[in-house]
């Protein structure tokens, strides 16, 4: 019997006892459906995190600061930490009153010379006093910039242009109403006034154009504040530093370094080690969100485990169904053997039947799972999760969906081997005996 005939025969045998087969398929369906939904949950949430990672920092960017003695400020057996004249008070980006060791131009040069570092850019920390649109009220905010490769998830307009000399910025969508605009589209093209105080306590006003409105996300670019272009960053930074000697100005709490976008995880780890050896600490965006992802993965794993248990229960259904059908078809098996069908082919016939049952159950389960998952996602996106635009709670990628079907088919095959082996071993004489 050739392979196609074998498959064809197995397929038609599958439906000889319809009720039994359909019930078994239903059991498989439940498992496959659950697995599809739980997997989709993992895919959806992780995809959202990945999108967010792309938004808050290009994947080839690392934030670097000077490594500090973990015990700084605490008395321990090694005694108090020594005073460091480079330590600067920084309430802009750290606990109030705590200090970080600033990066100096020398540090930037040292960083640039580290193997694997393509580009170093100091992070200019800017603290505006308030912002105001027209004659509206004044609001507090924070300011961030975009590093090469970073994107903004936009609700309207465009991202601030890196090349432009004009002062351009994005405001978060939550600011639109407060600033007095009708909607996101109305805000685009309007002027925003930024007040900033220099070291000599003089307040300056800088006007910039709102070129776009950014979506809110769990880790929005610019920490949920304004996203400004380089021209505006430089203007604000210079203004803020009026009255500070150049030497003092060039002190940065952190810097961004860029590395090869094609770097593997091992490359990134190696780069971090080199940074550590040189006295710096490097953190990628993935690191920052890594914990979050680990938790999601763990939850999905637990849910998947339940689905697999359901599948295992269903696979006993397959064992049972096939044992019954081997029992019922003893005569037929004996006859086929008498007619010269080998044991291997008989085994193939019954295990293929199991695989077909597994395939049907999983294909239907996955299909309906995807439909239901997509439905749930779109309903939730408009209601419960409206504050997290861009989040598709249950998403599917072709690979994991294929893997689910293949896994279920493999489980079904394993379940089928027991009855199939019994059929293959059946003695034709015993099967054909009567009287």
């Amino acid at each position, binding site marked *: *019997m050739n392979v196609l005939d074998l498959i064809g025969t197995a397929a038609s045998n599958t439906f000889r006892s319809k009720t039994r087969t359909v019930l078994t398929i239903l059991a498989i369906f439940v498992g496959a459906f659950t697995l599809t939904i739980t997997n989709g949950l993992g895919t959806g949430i992780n995809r959202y995190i990945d999108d967010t990672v792309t938004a808050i920092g290009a994947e080839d960017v690392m934030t670097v600061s000077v490594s500090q003695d973990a015990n700084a400020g605490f008395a321990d057996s090694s005694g108090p930490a020594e005073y460091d004249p480079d330590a600067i008070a920084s309430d802009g980006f750290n606990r109030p009153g705590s200090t970080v060791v600033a990066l100096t131009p020398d540090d930037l040069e040292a960083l640039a010379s580290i193997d694997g570092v393509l580009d170093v850019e100091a992070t200019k920390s800017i603290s505006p006093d308030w912002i105001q649109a027209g004659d509206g009220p004044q609001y507090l905010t924070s300011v961030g910039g975009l590093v090469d490769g970073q994107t903004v998830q936009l609700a309207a307009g465009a991202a601030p242009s890196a090349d432009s000399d004009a002062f351009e910025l994005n405001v978060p969508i939550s600011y639109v109403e407060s600033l007095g605009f009708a909607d996101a589209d109305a805000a685009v093209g309007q002027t925003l006034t930024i007040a900033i105080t220099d070291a000599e306590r003089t307040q300056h006003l800088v006007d910039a154009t709102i070129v776009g409105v950014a979506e809110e996300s769990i880790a929005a670019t610019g920490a949920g504040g304004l996203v400004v272009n380089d021209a505006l960053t430089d203007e604000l930074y210079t203004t803020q530093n009026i009255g500070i000697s150049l030497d003092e100005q060039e002190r940065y709490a952190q810097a961004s370094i860029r590395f090869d976008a094609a770097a593997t995880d091992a490359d990134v780890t190696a780069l971090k080690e080199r940074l550590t050896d040189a006295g710096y600490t490097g953190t990628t965006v993935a690191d920052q969100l890594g914990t979050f992802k680990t938790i999601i993965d763990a939850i999905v794993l637990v849910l998947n485990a339940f689905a697999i248990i359901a599948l295992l229960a269903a696979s006993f259904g397959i064992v049972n169904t096939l044992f019954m059908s081997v029992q019922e078809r003893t005569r037929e098996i004996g006859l086929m053997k008498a*007619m*010269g069908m*080998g044991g291997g082919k008989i085994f193939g016939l019954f295990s293929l039947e199991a695989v077909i049952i597994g395939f049907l159950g999983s294909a239907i389960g996955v299909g309906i799972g995807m439909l239901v998952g997509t439905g749930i996602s779109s309903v939730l996106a408009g209601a419960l999760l409206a504050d997290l635009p861009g989040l598709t709670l249950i998403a599917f990628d072709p690979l994991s969906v294929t893997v689910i079907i293949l896994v279920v088919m493999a489980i079904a095959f394993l379940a089928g081997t027991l009855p199939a082996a019994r059929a293959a071993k059946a003695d034709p004489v015993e099967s054909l005996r*009567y009287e």
Partner: protein
Amino acid sequence: MTTPIIRVKDVHKSYGKGPNRFDALKGVTFDINEGESVAIIGKSGSGKSTLMHVLALLDAPTSGTVELEGIDTSTLKGKKLNRARNKTFGFVFQQFFLTANISVLENVMLPMKIAGVRRSERKARAHAALEQLEMDDKASNKAVNLSGGQKQRSVIARALVNNPRIIFADEPTGNLDTATGGNVEDILFALNRDKGITLIVVTHDDELAARCDRRIYIRDGLLVNDTTEVAA
């Protein structure tokens, strides 16, 4: 002298072990020539079916040899054995052994499917065989819906569709009324006569046995009478 198609030499067959051991065949020796029609006759439990299973290579003898066209069948293993079964034998059983819920045509095609014959050829040959048995109009009926005589004719179509050298018939008329049974017998003997297919019939029906060229009587696992040898 030509090689007999089947040569049985001192065949023993026992079931079970130790105190439960039962000798179903206790040393049987005979030859069957190509084209013969042979009846194996004996009471119930005498060992007829056991002998037929040994001859049809469905069971190996405990001791002794069975030669198929001069080849010791104990040397046939795996694929070779399956090929020999598939190409050489056709079976007709008292209980028909048709798969109930598939069509007559599918049933008849089964041996060719096992042999790996292409589907189009399978169909053509199965229809031809059914035509020969005047059953072609029932080709697409489910086997379960046939009368006894129609079932047995379908079984014969299935037995001859692979052009076998030998047809084994175990009580082929046992489940049929006299008229239908006679009709089925006619068909089997016609195949034997016209196509030269060797016919080995297991029966306790004396009339059927009488129509065969030769009768082998068996009692308690021993060959008690062989008409050819008696005649010789």
